[in-house]
Protein backbone atom coordinates (compact mmCIF):
# COMPACT_ATOMS: atom_id res chain seq x y z
CA UNK A 1 0.00 0.00 0.00
CA UNK A 2 1.17 3.49 -0.73
CA UNK A 3 -0.19 5.43 2.21
CA UNK A 4 1.31 4.68 5.53
CA UNK A 5 -0.61 1.94 7.18
CA UNK A 6 -3.20 3.29 9.54
CA UNK A 7 -1.76 4.28 12.88
CA UNK A 8 1.80 3.43 11.91
CA UNK A 9 4.41 6.11 12.09
CA UNK A 10 6.22 6.73 8.85
CA UNK A 11 9.93 7.27 8.50
CA UNK A 12 11.12 8.74 5.22
CA UNK A 13 14.69 8.29 4.00
CA UNK A 14 16.03 10.11 0.95
CA UNK A 15 19.59 9.57 -0.30
CA UNK A 16 21.64 10.21 -3.42
CA UNK A 17 21.53 7.42 -5.96
CA UNK A 18 24.36 4.96 -6.35
CA UNK A 19 26.99 6.60 -8.50
CA UNK A 20 30.12 5.12 -6.94
CA UNK A 21 31.12 2.68 -4.27
CA UNK A 22 30.50 4.81 -1.21
CA UNK A 23 26.98 5.88 -2.13
CA UNK A 24 26.11 2.40 -3.33
CA UNK A 25 27.26 0.69 -0.14
CA UNK A 26 25.59 3.36 1.96
CA UNK A 27 22.27 2.86 0.23
CA UNK A 28 22.47 -0.79 1.01
CA UNK A 29 23.10 -0.10 4.67
CA UNK A 30 20.45 2.55 4.89
CA UNK A 31 17.79 0.40 3.36
CA UNK A 32 18.67 -2.67 5.36
CA UNK A 33 18.68 -0.68 8.55
CA UNK A 34 15.49 1.24 8.03
CA UNK A 35 13.77 -2.00 7.10
CA UNK A 36 15.04 -3.66 10.25
CA UNK A 37 14.12 -0.90 12.67
CA UNK A 38 10.73 -0.41 11.05
CA UNK A 39 9.93 -4.04 11.59
CA UNK A 40 11.33 -3.89 15.09
CA UNK A 41 9.32 -0.87 16.25
CA UNK A 42 6.28 -1.25 14.03
CA UNK A 43 6.95 1.72 11.77
CA UNK A 44 6.30 2.13 8.11
CA UNK A 45 9.03 3.54 5.90
CA UNK A 46 9.63 5.05 2.44
CA UNK A 47 13.06 5.05 0.84
CA UNK A 48 14.04 6.96 -2.25
CA UNK A 49 17.28 7.72 -4.06
CA UNK A 50 17.89 10.48 -6.58
CA UNK A 51 20.78 11.46 -8.79
CA UNK A 52 20.29 15.19 -8.71
CA UNK A 53 18.88 17.82 -6.39
CA UNK A 54 15.74 18.65 -8.33
CA UNK A 55 14.77 15.03 -8.33
CA UNK A 56 15.70 14.71 -4.70
CA UNK A 57 13.52 17.68 -3.81
CA UNK A 58 10.74 15.92 -5.63
CA UNK A 59 11.27 12.79 -3.56
CA UNK A 60 11.27 14.78 -0.33
CA UNK A 61 8.03 16.48 -1.29
CA UNK A 62 6.37 13.26 -2.34
CA UNK A 63 7.19 11.66 0.99
CA UNK A 64 6.19 14.82 2.81
CA UNK A 65 2.80 14.40 1.18
CA UNK A 66 2.47 11.11 3.06
CA UNK A 67 2.67 12.87 6.40
CA UNK A 68 5.77 11.18 7.79
CA UNK A 69 6.85 11.28 11.43
CA UNK A 70 10.42 12.10 10.47
CA UNK A 71 12.55 12.53 7.36
CA UNK A 72 16.18 11.48 7.19
CA UNK A 73 17.79 13.36 4.35
CA UNK A 74 21.16 12.79 2.79
CA UNK A 75 21.35 15.60 0.25
CA UNK A 76 23.02 15.14 -3.12
CA UNK A 77 24.49 18.53 -2.41
CA UNK A 78 23.75 20.39 0.74
CA UNK A 79 22.54 23.83 -0.14
CA UNK A 80 20.44 22.79 -3.08
CA UNK A 81 18.10 20.93 -0.78
CA UNK A 82 17.54 23.98 1.36
CA UNK A 83 14.19 24.88 -0.07
CA UNK A 84 12.86 21.34 0.12
CA UNK A 85 14.28 20.91 3.60
CA UNK A 86 12.64 24.10 4.66
CA UNK A 87 9.31 22.82 3.40
CA UNK A 88 9.79 19.84 5.66
CA UNK A 89 10.51 22.03 8.65
CA UNK A 90 7.66 24.37 7.77
CA UNK A 91 5.34 21.39 7.76
CA UNK A 92 6.46 20.61 11.30
CA UNK A 93 8.09 17.34 10.32
CA UNK A 94 11.33 16.60 12.16
CA UNK A 95 14.36 16.48 9.89
CA UNK A 96 17.68 14.70 10.25
CA UNK A 97 20.36 15.71 7.76
CA UNK A 98 23.22 13.36 7.04
CA UNK A 99 26.67 13.85 5.51
CA UNK A 100 26.20 17.04 3.53
CA UNK A 101 24.93 20.02 5.43
CA UNK A 102 22.63 22.77 4.37
CA UNK A 103 23.99 26.19 5.08
CA UNK A 104 21.71 28.49 6.97
CA UNK A 105 19.27 25.74 7.86
CA UNK A 106 19.06 24.31 11.32
CA UNK A 107 17.42 20.91 11.17
CA UNK A 108 16.56 18.89 14.23
CA UNK A 109 19.89 17.13 13.93
CA UNK A 110 22.92 16.97 11.70
CA UNK A 111 25.13 13.94 11.53
CA UNK A 112 28.17 13.26 9.42
CA UNK A 113 31.56 11.80 9.15
CA UNK A 114 34.09 14.49 9.72
CA UNK A 115 35.47 15.36 6.31
CA UNK A 116 37.45 18.31 7.50
CA UNK A 117 39.01 16.22 10.23
CA UNK A 118 39.98 13.62 7.65
CA UNK A 119 41.74 16.22 5.57
CA UNK A 120 43.46 17.64 8.62
CA UNK A 121 44.54 14.19 9.69
CA UNK A 122 46.02 13.37 6.31
CA UNK A 123 47.86 16.68 6.34
CA UNK A 124 49.41 15.92 9.71
CA UNK A 125 50.29 12.42 8.55
CA UNK A 126 52.06 13.90 5.52
CA UNK A 127 54.04 16.26 7.73
CA UNK A 128 55.14 13.45 9.98
CA UNK A 129 55.85 10.98 7.19
CA UNK A 130 58.00 13.33 5.17
CA UNK A 131 59.70 15.05 8.07
CA UNK A 132 63.16 14.34 6.72
CA UNK A 133 62.38 15.54 3.20
CA UNK A 134 60.68 18.68 4.45
CA UNK A 135 63.84 19.57 6.21
CA UNK A 136 65.54 19.53 2.82
CA UNK A 137 62.99 21.66 0.99
CA UNK A 138 59.74 21.21 -0.86
CA UNK A 139 57.96 17.92 -1.41
CA UNK A 140 55.94 17.30 -4.57
CA UNK A 141 52.65 15.46 -4.59
CA UNK A 142 49.68 14.77 -6.87
CA UNK A 143 46.08 15.25 -5.89
CA UNK A 144 43.17 13.14 -7.14
CA UNK A 145 39.85 14.70 -6.16
CA UNK A 146 36.46 13.05 -6.02
CA UNK A 147 34.33 15.57 -7.85
CA UNK A 148 33.42 19.19 -7.39
CA UNK A 149 30.89 18.83 -4.59
CA UNK A 150 31.34 19.94 -0.98
CA UNK A 151 32.69 16.70 0.45
CA UNK A 152 35.91 16.71 -1.58
CA UNK A 153 36.24 20.41 -0.95
CA UNK A 154 36.15 19.86 2.80
CA UNK A 155 38.71 17.11 2.57
CA UNK A 156 41.07 19.20 0.51
CA UNK A 157 40.59 22.29 2.63
CA UNK A 158 41.21 20.32 5.80
CA UNK A 159 44.33 18.90 4.24
CA UNK A 160 45.62 22.28 3.18
CA UNK A 161 44.96 23.71 6.62
CA UNK A 162 47.38 21.37 8.36
CA UNK A 163 49.85 20.27 5.73
CA UNK A 164 53.23 21.93 5.67
CA UNK A 165 53.39 24.74 3.09
CA UNK A 166 56.45 23.13 1.63
CA UNK A 167 54.23 20.47 0.09
CA UNK A 168 53.62 21.43 -3.53
CA UNK A 169 50.80 20.06 -5.61
CA UNK A 170 52.21 19.35 -9.08
CA UNK A 171 48.94 18.46 -10.74
CA UNK A 172 45.38 17.98 -9.64
CA UNK A 173 42.84 15.61 -11.19
CA UNK A 174 39.07 15.29 -10.93
CA UNK A 175 38.16 11.61 -11.06
CA UNK A 176 34.42 11.63 -10.52
CA UNK A 177 35.18 8.94 -7.94
CA UNK A 178 35.95 6.53 -10.75
CA UNK A 179 38.65 3.93 -10.48
CA UNK A 180 38.96 3.69 -14.22
CA UNK A 181 39.28 7.43 -14.65
CA UNK A 182 41.99 7.73 -12.05
CA UNK A 183 43.82 4.81 -13.62
CA UNK A 184 43.78 6.40 -17.05
CA UNK A 185 44.76 9.79 -15.71
CA UNK A 186 47.73 8.28 -13.92
CA UNK A 187 48.75 6.26 -16.97
CA UNK A 188 48.65 9.33 -19.12
CA UNK A 189 50.57 11.29 -16.57
CA UNK A 190 53.30 8.68 -16.38
CA UNK A 191 53.52 8.37 -20.12
CA UNK A 192 53.67 11.98 -21.07
CA UNK A 193 55.58 13.78 -18.34
CA UNK A 194 59.31 14.13 -18.20
CA UNK A 195 61.35 11.68 -16.21
CA UNK A 196 62.45 14.43 -13.88
CA UNK A 197 58.91 15.48 -13.17
CA UNK A 198 57.72 11.93 -12.52
CA UNK A 199 60.67 11.23 -10.28
CA UNK A 200 59.98 14.36 -8.27
CA UNK A 201 56.62 13.05 -7.06
CA UNK A 202 56.80 11.75 -3.51
CA UNK A 203 53.19 11.31 -2.49
CA UNK A 204 49.62 11.16 -3.74
CA UNK A 205 46.67 12.54 -1.86
CA UNK A 206 43.27 11.19 -2.94
CA UNK A 207 39.72 11.47 -1.70
CA UNK A 208 38.75 7.83 -1.89
CA UNK A 209 40.00 4.26 -1.73
CA UNK A 210 38.62 3.49 -5.16
CA UNK A 211 40.75 6.20 -6.68
CA UNK A 212 43.76 4.59 -5.04
CA UNK A 213 42.94 1.25 -6.64
CA UNK A 214 43.12 2.85 -10.05
CA UNK A 215 46.44 4.48 -9.24
CA UNK A 216 47.90 1.21 -8.04
CA UNK A 217 46.95 -0.52 -11.29
CA UNK A 218 48.45 2.29 -13.33
CA UNK A 219 51.68 2.19 -11.36
CA UNK A 220 51.85 -1.57 -11.78
CA UNK A 221 51.44 -1.17 -15.50
CA UNK A 222 54.13 1.45 -15.79
CA UNK A 223 57.28 0.33 -17.54
CA UNK A 224 58.81 3.60 -18.57
CA UNK A 225 62.26 4.95 -17.90
CA UNK A 226 61.44 6.99 -14.81
CA UNK A 227 62.05 5.66 -11.35
CA UNK A 228 58.96 5.85 -9.21
CA UNK A 229 59.79 7.71 -6.03
CA UNK A 230 56.29 7.80 -4.63
CA UNK A 231 56.31 6.66 -1.02
CA UNK A 232 52.84 7.34 0.21
CA UNK A 233 49.34 7.14 -1.23
CA UNK A 234 46.32 7.99 0.86
CA UNK A 235 42.68 7.10 0.48
CA UNK A 236 39.47 7.53 2.39
CA UNK A 237 36.99 4.80 3.33
CA UNK A 238 39.09 1.94 4.73
CA UNK A 239 37.21 -0.80 2.95
CA UNK A 240 38.05 -4.39 2.24
CA UNK A 241 40.05 -3.70 -0.90
CA UNK A 242 42.35 -1.28 0.87
CA UNK A 243 43.17 -3.84 3.54
CA UNK A 244 44.53 -6.04 0.76
CA UNK A 245 46.90 -3.26 -0.22
CA UNK A 246 48.44 -3.47 3.22
CA UNK A 247 48.95 -7.19 2.76
CA UNK A 248 50.40 -7.03 -0.68
CA UNK A 249 49.95 -4.12 -3.03
CA UNK A 250 52.25 -5.51 -5.71
CA UNK A 251 54.25 -2.31 -5.48
CA UNK A 252 57.43 -1.98 -3.53
CA UNK A 253 58.44 1.08 -1.62
CA UNK A 254 54.97 2.59 -1.49
CA UNK A 255 52.97 2.74 1.68
CA UNK A 256 49.30 3.35 2.12
CA UNK A 257 47.11 5.12 4.58
CA UNK A 258 43.40 5.66 4.71
CA UNK A 259 40.75 7.11 6.96
CA UNK A 260 37.69 5.25 8.01
CA UNK A 261 34.63 6.68 6.40
CA UNK A 262 32.20 3.87 6.60
CA UNK A 263 29.09 3.54 4.50
CA UNK A 264 27.51 2.06 7.60
CA UNK A 265 27.53 5.51 9.21
CA UNK A 266 24.24 6.15 7.54
CA UNK A 267 22.74 3.68 10.01
CA UNK A 268 23.42 6.18 12.75
CA UNK A 269 21.41 8.75 10.86
CA UNK A 270 18.50 6.35 10.56
CA UNK A 271 18.79 5.62 14.28
CA UNK A 272 18.44 9.33 14.99
CA UNK A 273 15.23 9.26 12.99
CA UNK A 274 13.99 6.40 15.13
CA UNK A 275 14.84 8.32 18.26
CA UNK A 276 12.73 11.20 17.03
CA UNK A 277 9.79 8.91 16.54
CA UNK A 278 10.27 7.62 20.04
CA UNK A 279 10.03 11.12 21.34
CA UNK A 280 13.64 11.67 22.26
CA UNK A 281 15.16 15.07 21.72
CA UNK A 282 18.29 15.15 19.69
CA UNK A 283 21.49 17.07 19.87
CA UNK A 284 21.96 19.56 17.10
CA UNK A 285 25.10 17.94 15.81
CA UNK A 286 26.67 14.51 15.74
CA UNK A 287 30.05 13.73 14.29
CA UNK A 288 30.87 10.15 13.50
CA UNK A 289 34.49 9.85 14.53
CA UNK A 290 36.91 8.82 11.85
CA UNK A 291 40.03 6.87 12.41
CA UNK A 292 43.35 6.78 10.65
CA UNK A 293 44.24 3.31 9.35
CA UNK A 294 47.70 2.38 8.15
CA UNK A 295 49.87 -0.70 8.20
CA UNK A 296 50.39 -0.34 11.93
CA UNK A 297 46.80 -0.76 12.99
CA UNK A 298 44.78 -2.26 10.19
CA UNK A 299 44.66 -5.76 11.61
CA UNK A 300 43.10 -4.55 14.83
CA UNK A 301 40.71 -2.41 12.84
CA UNK A 302 39.57 -5.41 10.86
CA UNK A 303 38.56 -7.15 14.09
CA UNK A 304 36.67 -4.11 15.31
CA UNK A 305 32.95 -3.30 15.34
CA UNK A 306 33.03 -0.70 12.63
CA UNK A 307 34.57 -3.05 10.11
CA UNK A 308 32.41 -6.03 10.97
CA UNK A 309 29.21 -4.01 10.79
CA UNK A 310 30.24 -2.67 7.42
CA UNK A 311 30.53 -6.15 6.01
CA UNK A 312 27.67 -7.66 7.93
CA UNK A 313 25.26 -7.63 4.99
Amino acid at each position, binding site marked *: *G*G*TKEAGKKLIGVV*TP*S*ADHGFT*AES*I*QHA*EAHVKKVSAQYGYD*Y*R*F*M*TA*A*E*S*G*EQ*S*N*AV*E*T*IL*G*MKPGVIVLWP*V*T*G*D*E*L*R*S*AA*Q*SVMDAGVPLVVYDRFI*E*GLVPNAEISGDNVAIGEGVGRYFNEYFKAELAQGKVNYLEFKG*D*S*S*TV*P*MERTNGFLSTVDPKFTVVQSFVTNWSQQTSMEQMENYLNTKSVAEIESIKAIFTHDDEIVFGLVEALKNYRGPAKINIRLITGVSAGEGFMKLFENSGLTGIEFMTYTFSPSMVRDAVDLGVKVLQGETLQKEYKVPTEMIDKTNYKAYMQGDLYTTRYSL
Partner: protein
Amino acid sequence: MKHPIIDFSNKKELWHEITNNYSHWLSFVFLFVVAIVVSPAFLSWSNLTNLFVQGAIVGICAMGMSLVISAGMIDLSTGSSVALLSGLGVVVLNSSGSLLVALLFCLVGGLLVGTINGLLVTKGGIAPFIVTLATMSAWRSVINQLGQGGPFTVSPAMYQGFRNVAAGRILGIPHLMIFLIIISVITALLMSKTKFGRYVYAVGSNQQAARLSGISVDRVKALIFMYAGTLYGLAAFLLASRLTSIQAASAGSGYEMDAIAAVAIGGTSMDGGKGKIIGTFLGILMLRIIHTVLIMANVPPFLNGLVQGIIIIVAVLAQSKRKNK
Protein backbone atom coordinates in the same frame (compact mmCIF):
# COMPACT_ATOMS: atom_id res chain seq x y z
CA MET B 1 -16.47 16.82 -52.69
CA LYS B 2 -14.46 14.68 -50.33
CA HIS B 3 -12.91 11.34 -50.81
CA PRO B 4 -12.06 9.90 -47.46
CA ILE B 5 -9.17 7.52 -47.79
CA ILE B 6 -9.68 6.09 -44.40
CA ASP B 7 -12.79 4.07 -44.17
CA PHE B 8 -14.14 3.46 -40.71
CA SER B 9 -16.47 0.77 -41.91
CA ASN B 10 -14.23 -1.72 -40.31
CA LYS B 11 -14.33 -1.77 -36.53
CA LYS B 12 -10.62 -2.30 -36.44
CA GLU B 13 -10.13 1.01 -38.22
CA LEU B 14 -11.49 2.98 -35.34
CA TRP B 15 -9.23 1.14 -32.96
CA HIS B 16 -6.33 1.81 -35.28
CA GLU B 17 -7.17 5.46 -35.43
CA ILE B 18 -7.26 5.59 -31.65
CA THR B 19 -4.02 3.73 -31.16
CA ASN B 20 -2.35 5.89 -33.77
CA ASN B 21 -3.45 9.29 -32.64
CA TYR B 22 -4.36 8.90 -29.03
CA SER B 23 -2.03 6.15 -27.92
CA HIS B 24 -0.26 8.44 -25.49
CA TRP B 25 -3.59 8.89 -23.75
CA LEU B 26 -3.90 5.14 -23.45
CA SER B 27 -0.47 4.88 -21.84
CA PHE B 28 -1.31 7.76 -19.56
CA VAL B 29 -4.56 6.25 -18.38
CA PHE B 30 -2.85 2.91 -17.90
CA LEU B 31 -0.20 4.43 -15.64
CA PHE B 32 -2.74 6.52 -13.82
CA VAL B 33 -4.75 3.43 -13.00
CA VAL B 34 -1.65 1.59 -11.86
CA ALA B 35 -0.87 4.47 -9.52
CA ILE B 36 -4.35 4.48 -8.03
CA VAL B 37 -4.22 0.75 -7.48
CA VAL B 38 -0.87 1.04 -5.75
CA SER B 39 -2.20 3.77 -3.53
CA PRO B 40 -5.56 5.49 -3.43
CA ALA B 41 -3.78 8.42 -1.77
CA PHE B 42 -2.43 9.12 -5.22
CA LEU B 43 -5.70 10.83 -6.00
CA SER B 44 -5.35 13.56 -3.38
CA TRP B 45 -5.31 17.13 -4.63
CA SER B 46 -1.94 17.71 -3.05
CA ASN B 47 -0.44 14.73 -4.78
CA LEU B 48 -1.95 15.56 -8.14
CA THR B 49 -0.71 19.14 -8.10
CA ASN B 50 2.59 17.80 -6.91
CA LEU B 51 2.92 15.86 -10.18
CA PHE B 52 2.78 19.15 -12.06
CA VAL B 53 5.09 20.93 -9.67
CA GLN B 54 7.68 18.20 -9.90
CA GLY B 55 7.32 17.90 -13.63
CA ALA B 56 7.43 21.61 -14.33
CA ILE B 57 11.14 22.30 -14.69
CA VAL B 58 12.00 19.27 -16.79
CA GLY B 59 8.64 19.71 -18.50
CA ILE B 60 9.49 23.19 -19.70
CA CYS B 61 12.74 21.79 -21.11
CA ALA B 62 10.79 18.97 -22.71
CA MET B 63 8.64 21.48 -24.58
CA GLY B 64 11.78 22.78 -26.25
CA MET B 65 12.96 19.23 -26.80
CA SER B 66 9.68 18.44 -28.57
CA LEU B 67 10.52 20.93 -31.28
CA VAL B 68 14.05 19.71 -31.55
CA ILE B 69 12.93 16.10 -31.95
CA SER B 70 10.03 16.94 -34.26
CA ALA B 71 12.58 18.46 -36.60
CA GLY B 72 14.55 15.21 -36.52
CA MET B 73 17.30 16.54 -34.28
CA ILE B 74 18.35 15.96 -30.68
CA ASP B 75 19.66 18.12 -27.86
CA LEU B 76 21.90 16.62 -25.21
CA SER B 77 22.95 19.94 -23.74
CA THR B 78 19.74 20.56 -21.79
CA GLY B 79 20.99 19.70 -18.31
CA SER B 80 24.32 21.47 -18.64
CA SER B 81 22.70 24.54 -20.14
CA VAL B 82 20.29 24.67 -17.22
CA ALA B 83 23.18 24.31 -14.78
CA LEU B 84 25.15 27.07 -16.45
CA LEU B 85 22.25 29.46 -16.62
CA SER B 86 20.95 28.85 -13.14
CA GLY B 87 24.39 29.12 -11.57
CA LEU B 88 25.02 32.42 -13.31
CA GLY B 89 21.42 33.42 -12.71
CA VAL B 90 22.03 33.18 -8.98
CA VAL B 91 25.12 35.37 -9.30
CA VAL B 92 23.12 37.95 -11.24
CA LEU B 93 20.29 37.77 -8.76
CA ASN B 94 22.57 38.31 -5.80
CA SER B 95 24.39 41.19 -7.37
CA SER B 96 21.44 42.94 -8.98
CA GLY B 97 19.00 42.25 -6.21
CA SER B 98 16.24 42.04 -8.78
CA LEU B 99 14.18 39.02 -9.71
CA LEU B 100 13.34 40.55 -13.04
CA VAL B 101 16.94 41.18 -13.99
CA ALA B 102 17.80 37.61 -13.07
CA LEU B 103 14.89 36.28 -15.11
CA LEU B 104 15.85 38.36 -18.12
CA PHE B 105 19.42 37.25 -17.74
CA CYS B 106 18.39 33.60 -17.76
CA LEU B 107 16.14 34.02 -20.77
CA VAL B 108 18.68 35.94 -22.82
CA GLY B 109 21.44 33.61 -21.71
CA GLY B 110 19.30 30.68 -22.79
CA LEU B 111 18.68 32.29 -26.14
CA LEU B 112 22.41 32.66 -26.55
CA VAL B 113 23.16 29.10 -25.57
CA GLY B 114 20.53 27.93 -28.03
CA THR B 115 21.96 30.16 -30.72
CA ILE B 116 25.36 28.59 -30.29
CA ASN B 117 23.89 25.12 -30.76
CA GLY B 118 21.91 26.38 -33.70
CA LEU B 119 24.88 27.99 -35.44
CA LEU B 120 27.09 24.97 -35.00
CA VAL B 121 24.38 22.75 -36.44
CA THR B 122 23.53 25.00 -39.37
CA LYS B 123 26.60 26.99 -40.28
CA GLY B 124 28.94 24.31 -39.02
CA GLY B 125 27.01 21.51 -40.64
CA ILE B 126 27.64 19.23 -37.64
CA ALA B 127 25.10 16.66 -36.50
CA PRO B 128 23.00 17.92 -33.58
CA PHE B 129 23.99 14.91 -31.52
CA ILE B 130 27.66 15.86 -31.72
CA VAL B 131 27.15 19.58 -31.30
CA THR B 132 25.09 19.16 -28.20
CA LEU B 133 27.35 16.44 -26.83
CA ALA B 134 30.14 18.99 -27.06
CA THR B 135 28.17 21.87 -25.57
CA MET B 136 26.91 19.55 -22.84
CA SER B 137 30.48 18.92 -21.86
CA ALA B 138 31.53 22.53 -22.35
CA TRP B 139 28.83 24.26 -20.29
CA ARG B 140 29.21 21.87 -17.40
CA SER B 141 32.88 22.55 -17.44
CA VAL B 142 32.43 26.31 -17.54
CA ILE B 143 30.07 26.41 -14.60
CA ASN B 144 32.28 24.02 -12.63
CA GLN B 145 35.22 26.29 -13.26
CA LEU B 146 33.27 29.36 -12.21
CA GLY B 147 31.97 27.66 -9.10
CA GLN B 148 35.27 25.98 -8.29
CA GLY B 149 33.44 23.24 -6.52
CA GLY B 150 31.36 25.49 -4.34
CA PRO B 151 27.65 26.05 -4.81
CA PHE B 152 26.03 29.23 -6.09
CA THR B 153 23.80 30.19 -3.22
CA VAL B 154 21.03 32.76 -3.18
CA SER B 155 21.91 35.50 -0.74
CA PRO B 156 19.84 35.70 2.45
CA ALA B 157 18.49 39.06 1.34
CA MET B 158 16.88 37.55 -1.75
CA TYR B 159 16.07 34.17 -0.29
CA GLN B 160 12.44 34.52 0.75
CA GLY B 161 11.24 36.44 -2.25
CA PHE B 162 13.07 34.34 -4.73
CA ARG B 163 12.12 31.02 -3.18
CA ASN B 164 8.50 32.06 -3.48
CA VAL B 165 8.70 32.13 -7.27
CA ALA B 166 8.84 28.35 -7.38
CA ALA B 167 7.33 27.48 -4.05
CA GLY B 168 4.40 29.90 -4.08
CA ARG B 169 0.77 29.38 -4.98
CA ILE B 170 -2.06 31.43 -6.39
CA LEU B 171 -5.52 30.41 -5.21
CA GLY B 172 -4.06 27.12 -4.10
CA ILE B 173 -2.50 26.45 -7.47
CA PRO B 174 1.28 26.14 -7.37
CA HIS B 175 3.19 28.66 -9.48
CA LEU B 176 5.25 25.91 -11.09
CA MET B 177 2.11 24.20 -12.29
CA ILE B 178 0.96 27.44 -13.86
CA PHE B 179 4.32 27.96 -15.55
CA LEU B 180 4.23 24.47 -16.99
CA ILE B 181 0.72 24.85 -18.31
CA ILE B 182 1.36 28.26 -19.85
CA ILE B 183 4.52 27.13 -21.62
CA SER B 184 2.80 23.99 -22.82
CA VAL B 185 -0.12 25.93 -24.22
CA ILE B 186 2.16 28.43 -25.96
CA THR B 187 4.22 25.62 -27.44
CA ALA B 188 1.14 23.71 -28.52
CA LEU B 189 -0.23 26.81 -30.26
CA LEU B 190 3.12 27.50 -31.86
CA MET B 191 3.29 24.01 -33.25
CA SER B 192 -0.28 23.53 -34.33
CA LYS B 193 -1.36 26.98 -35.40
CA THR B 194 1.57 28.80 -36.89
CA LYS B 195 3.63 28.58 -40.04
CA PHE B 196 6.68 27.99 -37.96
CA GLY B 197 5.13 24.85 -36.54
CA ARG B 198 4.49 23.54 -40.04
CA TYR B 199 8.10 24.23 -40.97
CA VAL B 200 9.39 22.34 -37.97
CA TYR B 201 7.47 19.25 -39.01
CA ALA B 202 8.39 19.72 -42.66
CA VAL B 203 12.08 19.91 -41.83
CA GLY B 204 11.76 16.80 -39.70
CA SER B 205 9.85 14.97 -42.35
CA ASN B 206 11.79 15.76 -45.51
CA GLN B 207 14.48 18.40 -45.46
CA GLN B 208 14.96 18.43 -49.16
CA ALA B 209 11.28 18.94 -49.81
CA ALA B 210 11.25 21.71 -47.25
CA ARG B 211 14.20 23.41 -48.89
CA LEU B 212 12.67 23.13 -52.34
CA SER B 213 9.52 24.71 -50.95
CA GLY B 214 11.54 27.79 -50.21
CA ILE B 215 11.83 27.14 -46.50
CA SER B 216 15.16 28.14 -45.05
CA VAL B 217 15.93 24.88 -43.31
CA ASP B 218 18.87 26.41 -41.51
CA ARG B 219 16.85 29.24 -40.15
CA VAL B 220 14.17 26.87 -38.88
CA LYS B 221 16.75 24.71 -37.16
CA ALA B 222 18.46 27.68 -35.59
CA LEU B 223 15.14 29.07 -34.36
CA ILE B 224 14.26 25.73 -32.83
CA PHE B 225 17.44 25.67 -30.80
CA MET B 226 16.86 29.28 -29.83
CA TYR B 227 13.36 28.54 -28.62
CA ALA B 228 14.59 25.49 -26.73
CA GLY B 229 17.45 27.49 -25.24
CA THR B 230 15.13 30.22 -24.03
CA LEU B 231 12.97 27.62 -22.34
CA TYR B 232 16.08 26.16 -20.71
CA GLY B 233 16.73 29.68 -19.43
CA LEU B 234 13.29 29.80 -17.88
CA ALA B 235 13.78 26.32 -16.44
CA ALA B 236 17.12 27.45 -15.00
CA PHE B 237 15.50 30.43 -13.32
CA LEU B 238 12.85 28.21 -11.80
CA LEU B 239 15.38 25.60 -10.74
CA ALA B 240 17.43 28.25 -8.97
CA SER B 241 14.31 29.41 -7.22
CA ARG B 242 13.29 25.89 -6.28
CA LEU B 243 16.70 24.90 -4.92
CA THR B 244 17.90 28.39 -3.88
CA SER B 245 21.40 27.06 -4.36
CA ILE B 246 23.00 25.61 -7.43
CA GLN B 247 25.72 23.00 -7.29
CA ALA B 248 27.63 23.32 -10.54
CA ALA B 249 28.66 19.69 -10.76
CA SER B 250 25.26 18.12 -10.56
CA ALA B 251 22.53 20.71 -11.15
CA GLY B 252 20.24 19.71 -13.98
CA SER B 253 22.18 16.59 -14.76
CA GLY B 254 20.13 14.05 -16.65
CA TYR B 255 17.44 16.56 -17.65
CA GLU B 256 18.06 15.88 -21.32
CA MET B 257 17.32 12.21 -20.89
CA ASP B 258 14.17 12.90 -18.91
CA ALA B 259 13.04 15.43 -21.48
CA ILE B 260 13.70 13.04 -24.34
CA ALA B 261 11.96 10.23 -22.52
CA ALA B 262 8.94 12.47 -21.95
CA VAL B 263 8.80 13.40 -25.60
CA ALA B 264 9.15 9.79 -26.67
CA ILE B 265 6.61 8.25 -24.33
CA GLY B 266 4.36 11.12 -25.33
CA GLY B 267 4.23 9.54 -28.77
CA THR B 268 6.59 11.74 -30.75
CA SER B 269 8.66 9.78 -33.22
CA MET B 270 12.41 10.08 -32.78
CA ASP B 271 12.69 10.26 -36.58
CA GLY B 272 11.09 13.66 -36.72
CA GLY B 273 8.19 14.93 -38.77
CA LYS B 274 5.56 14.15 -36.20
CA GLY B 275 4.92 15.03 -32.65
CA LYS B 276 2.23 16.18 -30.33
CA ILE B 277 2.82 18.73 -27.63
CA ILE B 278 0.00 17.33 -25.57
CA GLY B 279 1.80 14.03 -25.78
CA THR B 280 4.94 15.54 -24.30
CA PHE B 281 2.84 17.12 -21.58
CA LEU B 282 1.37 13.74 -20.72
CA GLY B 283 4.82 12.21 -21.05
CA ILE B 284 6.13 14.46 -18.31
CA LEU B 285 3.24 13.57 -16.06
CA MET B 286 3.80 9.89 -16.80
CA LEU B 287 7.42 10.13 -15.74
CA ARG B 288 6.31 11.78 -12.52
CA ILE B 289 3.69 9.11 -11.94
CA ILE B 290 6.35 6.46 -12.39
CA HIS B 291 8.53 8.13 -9.77
CA THR B 292 5.63 8.47 -7.38
CA VAL B 293 4.70 4.84 -7.84
CA LEU B 294 8.28 3.81 -7.16
CA ILE B 295 8.14 5.62 -3.83
CA MET B 296 4.64 4.56 -2.89
CA ALA B 297 5.33 0.92 -3.70
CA ASN B 298 8.60 1.05 -1.81
CA VAL B 299 10.53 -0.49 -4.69
CA PRO B 300 14.04 -1.37 -3.45
CA PRO B 301 16.30 1.54 -4.36
CA PHE B 302 18.68 -0.39 -6.57
CA LEU B 303 15.74 -1.76 -8.53
CA ASN B 304 14.22 1.63 -9.34
CA GLY B 305 16.08 1.77 -12.63
CA LEU B 306 14.85 -1.64 -13.68
CA VAL B 307 11.25 -0.90 -12.85
CA GLN B 308 11.42 2.49 -14.53
CA GLY B 309 12.95 0.96 -17.65
CA ILE B 310 10.26 -1.68 -17.81
CA ILE B 311 7.45 0.83 -17.33
CA ILE B 312 8.81 3.05 -20.10
CA ILE B 313 9.03 0.11 -22.48
CA VAL B 314 5.52 -1.01 -21.64
CA ALA B 315 4.14 2.50 -22.04
CA VAL B 316 5.75 2.94 -25.43
CA LEU B 317 4.95 -0.60 -26.50
CA ALA B 318 1.29 0.20 -25.99
CA GLN B 319 1.70 2.83 -28.69
CA SER B 320 3.81 1.12 -31.25
CA LYS B 321 2.08 -1.92 -32.59
CA ARG B 322 1.13 -0.02 -35.72
CA LYS B 323 4.62 0.62 -36.94
CA ASN B 324 5.62 -2.58 -38.64
CA LYS B 325 5.00 -2.61 -42.36
